[in-house]
């Protein structure tokens, strides 16, 4: 234990830990809705879209966060509008957005120098180089996102489980847009830390683990946040100890937690089924 505490002697690592925990918790919580409304593909698309957002920001001269948010929000609105037209299925619309935005990013970036270097940083993230203001920004974005999601929590859950019923009760489709924007903001806040690939993992895996443990969405958000934070702590500690890539280690930690939970839950199910079965056969 003392050894691990020693690891965190450096300010760099402490900041990284704080950022990683914030990101992990936020993704774990928002992830509950990502899994519930089947949004992993959408999440992947948004993650890819941060790339052109950042490139455009660099070209125009905005901060990466602002550029990322602006482009991603614009794209999400475009997806929302086209999907609303109902001529194509949602996954096709999201697919076009994914391919198009990423192609745009690559095309724009190819006119700049330092092409390859920037791309890899975006792909794998760099949690160890976060500055204090990055942590603050993540915290603020996280608070705004969570407030938005919690404010419309009841409506979202209703809509998820009973679309017709919700619509009959006057559910406004624009609440879907709020959720999508919340996911988008989460991704933009997460990508600098763990990169695009792992942002997607962090938004799905802790939530999947939470789902094994509870069926209620509210509880899943809290449990997911816990899993996410735990993945960050475990992953970052492991990466400091064994000198492995930080982002990837966090993602692997979340996968390990998921697998562990799955095994425990399955074993528990098998045990209870053996006890119940004899009475069912005689029904």
């Amino acid at each position: 234990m003392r050894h691990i505490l020693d690891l965190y002697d450096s300010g760099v690592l402490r900041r990284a830990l704080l950022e990683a925990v914030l990101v992990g918790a936020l993704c774990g919580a928002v992830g509950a809705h990502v899994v519930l409304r089947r949004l992993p593909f959408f999440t992947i698309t948004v993650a890819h879209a941060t790339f052109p957002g950042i490139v455009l920001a660099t070209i125009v001269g905005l901060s990466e966060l602002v550029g990322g948010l602006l482009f991603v929000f614009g794209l999400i609105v475009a997806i929302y509008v086209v999907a609303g037209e109902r001529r194509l299925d949602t996954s096709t619309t999201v697919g076009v957005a994914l391919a198009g935005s990423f192609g745009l990013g690559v095309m724009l970036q190819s006119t700049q120098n330092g092409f390859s270097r920037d791309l890899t940083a975006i792909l794998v993230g760099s949690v160890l180089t976060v500055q204090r203001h990055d942590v603050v920004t993540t915290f603020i974005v996280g608070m705004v996102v969570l407030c938005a999601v919690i404010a419309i929590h009841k409506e979202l859950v209703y809509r998820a489980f009973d679309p017709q019923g919700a619509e009959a009760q006057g559910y406004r489709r624009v609440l879907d847009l709020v959720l999508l924007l919340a996911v988008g903001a989460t991704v933009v806040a997460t990508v600098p830390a763990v990169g695009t690939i792992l942002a997607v993992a962090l938004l799905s895996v802790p939530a999947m683990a939470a789902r094994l443990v509870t069926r209620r969405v509210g509880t899943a958000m809290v449990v997911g946040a816990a899993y996410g934070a735990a993945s960050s702590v475990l992953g970052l500690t492991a990466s400091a100890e064994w000198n492995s890539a930080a982002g990837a280690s966090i993602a692997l930690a979340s996968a390990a937690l998921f697998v562990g939970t799955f095994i425990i839950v399955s074993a528990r199910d098998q045990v209870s089924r053996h006890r119940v079965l004899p009475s069912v056969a005689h029904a």
Partner: protein
Amino acid sequence: MQRAILITLVLALLAGVVGVLVQLRELSFMSDALTHTVFPGVAIAFAAGQSLFVGALIAGAVSSVLLTVATRSKRIDQDSFLALLLAGLFSIGVVVISRHHTYSADLTTLLFGRLLAVDTLEVIETAAVALIALGVVVAMRKELLLRAFDEIGAEAMGYSLLCIDLAVNLVVALVVVAAARAVGTALVVAFLITPAATARLMCSTLTRLVATSVAVGAVGAWLGLVISYDTSIHQGWRLAPGATIVVVLTAIFAIVAMYQAVRTRAVGHETTSSSTT
């Protein structure tokens, strides 16, 4: 340049046809997942100094089987599991490449291809794969149509959904393999999804869908190449040709989508129900 044009036209034809299948079966996510899972095969082949083509083929075959089986299982949530596999396998590819000292440049080549530097052998390899993939689609077109339209009916008639789905995923994987050298694994998804999506906005009979999809793909490919070539000569911008094609294809989609939206609003609800012919 001629080889670049040739290879992109072959890809436009292949992806145009397979893209309609992807559209009808709503496999956009699966296709994207396959591009991410073929990548480690390409990466490992590159690091080992072997043929990228063979690496892509092996990864394509393995991941098709893996993804097909995973998505047929009813126990775990499909989309999340797919995302997990995608992220995991892609990360492996990145890690393998990162051990190489020319990391960044290699990554770029593998992800985005080197369209202007394709040699004759690569054109032939691409054409051969395209022929096989198209052959499979044409041979199985009845069964693919039935399965896409009526899953329950297909099963009742005794067709194995697992076999048909595996064949479809293998065909998509073959498209990714065919495109790997020219436009890279990251951009091929645009060829598969966007022209077919554009066609779907415009027509609703199967033959017209396929024809339009191929036509849009070919026009977009040619236009993209011309623009990227032209601007590099006259403006001095080095626009990556593969990416430019993708942007052009997306722009065509956007224009058609906006036109449809305006037309629907202008004429009212009657348009939507009568536009099914």
